[in-house]
């Protein structure tokens, strides 16, 4: 079978899987977050932590809970990495260097999973399982909790309560992510992904050399790595490693897993709101952007320029032969349009414009479909901006989902939209201004700029994928990218929760003839247009100096 046919089949199978799971999973999540009863194990946990699960929180209390939990998570993970040499299952590894441990802790708590370390030669099984994998669950559940709080804000009126963070967190882990992860891990093991707790196997190769084959609890971590749009690989080579992603079936499964929850959340949104059409509209906007980006990325990788690439028949540098160009492009598109950051090919080796699309995907703010939860709340903020722009056009006070979009709501939305570009562009500017961070670039010229821009875009948007050329394990990048991840994650969350509290406090506005329908194709088109225009206005100069300049000079 040709690469093209295999790629098309993969896309068809992927659409089928996502189509079949969208309604049941979306409805299940809506039931989870609106249930009034607690499981026995949940009640036990609440009692141990002295939490009243039936007491709802105002948005500032909800935000303080998010921040408190995340601070404790960073410090716990940092301690685990620094003390791994005295903990069991360390495989004899030393403690992780302080600044690298901090970068990794910030990375996994923010759902970024940027990796300045090589998993198989740095971390023992205990840190991988009790530290990183736990944060894979927790950080994804935090994103979903914040998204649900925003949806509650729109669904409720004349209240200052947006839910209980601890209940949302626990339910997200126990009732959604954990069951799905168990099924996914079993499927991955059945398909050949490694799962053991043994020390590395030492073998002698045909040429007589000695080789160490590291195993570990890979499948169980792989499942939540994709499902929670985390992306941190057990191995340094991530999903291009044959123990982590051995064949086209696991490749398809991993892509499906990373898109599963983000594409189902619009259904949850529609159900919680009591108007499923609103969910379809958000889903349509996500799907349009995803399809457009996938088309661009595949075309750029398939119709490459350059005599060597044309002679070879494909732009295969940095790609796995077992996946080929289309499946590599599909994975790259899915991982950069969600906040996953897993890779099955090296984006640094993509054609200049293909690599540019992966950067652009992250610059959209990862909203198509985005991270678990963060994709939905990002798209809803953009929907607020869209109705605001539409309101300016016709001179009416904008409304969205029965709530007036007034100065306070627009301030929250504007702050949200300004945060990530500020983190990305200031970080890139600082890095390019000093010789030491510039020395980490593998390439000079526009491609070198793309490497640094990619790193800060990935960190600021909590993606976590790397362009592969940049040497990130330096004190500057450990600290700068760690700060970019923390501010890029939690500042937007504060603005989203502020918006949730603001709309929850309003009384509902009845729809009139002058109300812009937000479930029709016209609104979907406007929403996509706003996404593209906002990103183009914000990032075009940086893109022009990096991937675009490289693309037109090749």
């Amino acid at each position, binding site marked *: 079978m040709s690469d093209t046919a295999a790629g098309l089949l993969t896309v068809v199978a992927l659409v089928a899987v996502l189509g079949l799971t969208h309604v049941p999973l979306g409805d299940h999540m809506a039931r989870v977050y609106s249930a009034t009863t607690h499981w026995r194990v949940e009640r036990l946990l609440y009692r141990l932590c002295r939490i009243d699960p039936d007491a709802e929180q105002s948005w500032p209390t909800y935000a303080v809970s998010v921040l408190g939990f995340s601070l404790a998570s960073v410090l716990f993970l940092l301690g685990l990495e*620094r003390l791994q040499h005295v903990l069991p299952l360390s495989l004899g590894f030393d403690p*992780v*260097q*302080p600044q690298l441990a901090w970068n990794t802790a*910030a990375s996994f708590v923010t759902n970024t999973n940027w990796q300045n370390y090589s998993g198989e*030669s740095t971390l023992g099984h205990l840190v991988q399982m009790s530290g990183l994998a736990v944060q894979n669950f927790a950080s994804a559940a935090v994103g979903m909790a914040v998204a649900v709080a925003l949806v509650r804000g729109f669904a409720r009126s004349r209240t200052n309560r947006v839910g209980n963070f601890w209940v949302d967190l626990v339910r997200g882990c126990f009732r959604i992510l954990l069951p799905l992860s168990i099924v996914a891990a079993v499927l991955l093991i059945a398909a050949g992904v490694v799962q053991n707790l043994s020390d590395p196997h030492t073998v002698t190769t045909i040429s007589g050399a000695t080789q160490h084959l590291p195993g570990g609890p890979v499948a169980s971590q792989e499942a939540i790595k994709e499902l929670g749009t985390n992306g941190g690989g057990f191995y340094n080579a991530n999903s291009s490693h044959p123990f982590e992603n051995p064949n086209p079936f696991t490749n398809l499964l991993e892509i499906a897993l990373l898109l599963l929850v983000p594409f189902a959340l619009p259904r949850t949104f529609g159900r919680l709101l009591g108007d499923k059409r609103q969910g379809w509209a958000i889903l349509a906007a996500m799907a349009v952007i995803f399809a457009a980006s996938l088309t661009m990325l595949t075309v750029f990788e398939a119709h490459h320029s350059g005599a060597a690439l044309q002679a070879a028949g494909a732009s295969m540098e940095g790609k796995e032969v077992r996946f080929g160009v289309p499946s590599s492009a599909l994975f790259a598109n899915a991982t950069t349009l969600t906040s996953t950051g897993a890779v099955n090919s090296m984006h640094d080796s993509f054609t200049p414009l293909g690599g540019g699309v992966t950067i652009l995907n992250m610059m959209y703010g990862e909203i198509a479909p985005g991270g678990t939860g963060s994709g939905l709340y990002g798209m809803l903020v953009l929907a607020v901006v869209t109705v605001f722009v539409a309101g300016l056009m016709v001179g009416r006070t904008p409304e969205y989902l029965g709530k007036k979009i007034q100065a*306070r709501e627009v301030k929250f939305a504007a702050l949200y939209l300004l945060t990530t570009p500020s983190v990305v562009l200031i970080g890139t500017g600082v890095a390019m201004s000093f010789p030491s961070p510039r020395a980490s670039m593998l390439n000079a010229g526009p491609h070198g700029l793309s490497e640094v821009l990619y790193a800060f875009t990935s960190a600021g948007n909590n993606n976590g994928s790397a362009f592969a050329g940049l040497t990130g394990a330096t004190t500057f990048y450990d600290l700068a990218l760690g700060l970019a991840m923390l*501010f890029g994650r939690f500042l937007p969350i504060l603005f989203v929760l502020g918006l949730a509290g603001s709309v929850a406090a309003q009384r509902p506005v009845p729809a009139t003839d002058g109300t812009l329908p937000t479930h029709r194709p016209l609104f979907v088109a406007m929403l996509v247009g706003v996404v593209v225009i906002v990103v183009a206005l914000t990032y075009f100069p940086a893109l022009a100096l990096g991937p675009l300049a490289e693309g037109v000079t090749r």
Partner: protein
Amino acid sequence: MGDESFPSWRCVVLDVALVALTIAVFAVLVLVLRGLERL
């Protein structure tokens, strides 16, 4: 990736500094939150 190149006293200083940095970042976030409440 171990600590061979790091004297132990430097690691302790770095550990304390990084914990302080983490707390400082979250303190800034709490200050932003308090500001947003008055928005």
